[in-house]
């Protein structure tokens, strides 16, 4: 009989190891910092990608997140897990990028309309993503606004409990539950016409 999933063991190992490596990172051990970055880089990148929806910008967001975390490492007191703390930073970084992008895109749309009225936006990697996955549902998730998309990704991709998501987004657990309800309803209504 299966007793536990290897993924779960990995998760607890990471939590225990974090505290050890963190102390070394705080002491300025480069090797430890590299290890910490290596351990969390995929999760941070995929979180950034799910928010920013642009692989290049997600790379910049990942870099910015880790550098911000390293600068603030001394202030990490272990009240939450390191991953929760890192995710909060990543979300702040990505939100601020979204705000900047929104202003930039307004200008870009204006210029696009002026000079290239018939050109469609297309990102090769995004296209490959669409072909690799169920494009409809993926697009429906992307169509959610940021307030609802982030809890969905944290819950259904990163498998985080409501309490952790609430801590990351700094809102009460009830709000997360309500946002998830809203998002699930919206996703199902968007997919209603689609045959299974």
């Amino acid at each position, binding site marked *: 009989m299966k007793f536990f999933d290897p993924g779960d063991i990995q998760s607890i190992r990471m939590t225990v190891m974090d505290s050890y490596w963190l102390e070394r990172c705080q002491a*300025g051990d480069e090797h430890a910092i590299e290890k910490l970055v290596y351990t969390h880089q995929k999760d941070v990148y995929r979180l950034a990608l799910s928010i920013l929806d642009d692989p290049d910008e997600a790379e910049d967001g990942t870099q910015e997140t880790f550098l911000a975390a390293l600068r603030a490492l001394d202030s990490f007191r272990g009240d939450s897990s390191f991953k929760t703390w890192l995710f909060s930073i990543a979300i702040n970084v990505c939100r601020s990028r979204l705000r900047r992008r929104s202003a930039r895109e307004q200008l870009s749309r204006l210029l696009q309309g002026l000079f290239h009225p018939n050109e469609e936006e297309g990102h090769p990697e995004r296209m490959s993503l669409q072909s690799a996955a169920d494009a409809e549902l993926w697009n429906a998730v992307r169509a959610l606004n940021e307030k609802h998309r982030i809890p969905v990704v944290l819950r259904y991709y990163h498998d985080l409990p409501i309490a952790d998501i609430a801590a990351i987004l700094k809102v009460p657990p009830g709000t997360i539950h309500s946002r998830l309800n809203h998002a699930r309803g919206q996703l199902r209504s968007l997919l209603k016409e689609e045959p299974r």
Partner: protein
Amino acid sequence: MSGIIHEQARRYMRAEMDGLLHKDQLALLDAHLRECATCRAEAEEWHIFETRLKNNLRAGLNVYDGPSDRVLKNIRSKTRRIIIMKKINTGVGILGGLVALLILGLLLNQLLTRSRVPAENMLSPTAQPQQIPEIGTGISNGEWIAFVGGTSTPVTGSDIPSITQDIYMVHPDGSGLVNLTQNQEPTGYRYGSLQWSPDGKHLLYVQNRGDGTIDIRRITLYGGGEVSGKPVTDPDNQGYAWSSNSTQVAFADAGSGNYDIYTVYADGRNDPRLTQVTDDPGEDVGFVWSPDGHRLAYQNRQGSSLSIRVMDADGSNQVEVARGTGKMRLRWSRDGKSIYALAQTGNDRLECETCTAKPSIYRIELDGSFVRQIAPQDDVQVIWRYLYEESPGRVYFMRNTTSADSLKIWGSWLYADDSQVREIGPMDSQQICKTTEGNALSEFISPNERFSLILNFCAGGFDLYLAERSQPMQKNLIHLLRLPLSTIGQGADGDWLPIVWAPDGRSVLYASEENSSIYTLNLEEVMQGRVTEPTLLLNTGEMNFISEITWQPKP
């Protein structure tokens, strides 16, 4: 039809998807779904939707294998710069401090030169013999492990063996073994209840003189001494506790006919000021120090009546903050603004306006004495244990039921905050050992309270597991090692594995009765798969039992 209506069932379905449904609610939902085909179909649809969403997100995001090497290279190079900048900042800070100290030193020197006493009038410091190693000074804290060990020799014609025992200390690498009590007390004395002060500077123990008279004694820098200032009739039963600021201990004594609480300074000062801080009818017991070490919460029990009170450390300002029946285990919140009371039997209750007549955990807000009930439970066999407060109002705890012979434990780890109680996962010794009946199961909580070592008797041996308390147990148990039955005593009542966490939570120690040795298990190395066997820290040679181990705290 079961107890909930369709709309409620839908709400429960949504809560269940977010892991927010309580066990009782889950049972109600299950019952409803068994009877209502429409809701069952809806639940099935949600399940399919969730699975699809998860798979889809994984398929969508796992295409990307993380950031490119360019990003990692950038982080690496900028990391160096950050470290250098931090070091420069620290250096500038230190340099500034040194300059300030230099100026201060020059000023002081001038002052002292003016007021210097002639050398012939100065007293030379009294040379005190250093009988035991310097604890808490000279080397950093966390550097000593104290234990009680000795020999038990059978006596012809008697069931009672002859026991000699002493308190020892050793470094975590096995060096520096020292006997702290040898030649100081006559043979026949028993030692126990070793407790380091939270700052790691003093080690207290309880000494039974062999005639039933018990003292609390101190081992500290440059020798020991009696702490309690009076023989204590029964501190071992009611325990004693260091204040969080490492100055005083509180203990209960029934010398006056019923238990009263006393405090005494145990930090080695000349005037220990033994003070009787309660003098009530009934038993004043179950005391706990506030996080700042200035107040005590305690229980006054008269028959089945229970009064929970708070007072200053000198006994002044005694206030009743809650009342009820039975007995509780008290625990202060980290911020010192509230007290958690954990029911210890199915008959334990606190009274409040909104409380149901079910045992539970209660939170007593000291500002206004408001009592809140957390996780009430119908089953009177249940008790609440090992509360861990993550942040104010957010707690993890274990609710368990023990069989009459204490051989089986069932229960759950739970999470609660002001808005919800969530079951994290069941804890059942049968889950761990699936081959035999009768599994005694015990938890040892890590210093940061987030992890547990779980010791379980299974199929003729003992297994030691590591688990994170905020995760479902059935999913996150890591098997650390298996110990033969002979590791732990001879199976007599009260025999248990002396086990202790390192102050930094990175390793654990245990003593094997089998060969009177202390072993250490480095959890980091186990996690990394580098080590699977414990390391022998100390073979005590002529000793044939070790009954207690405690590791000097590292504040």
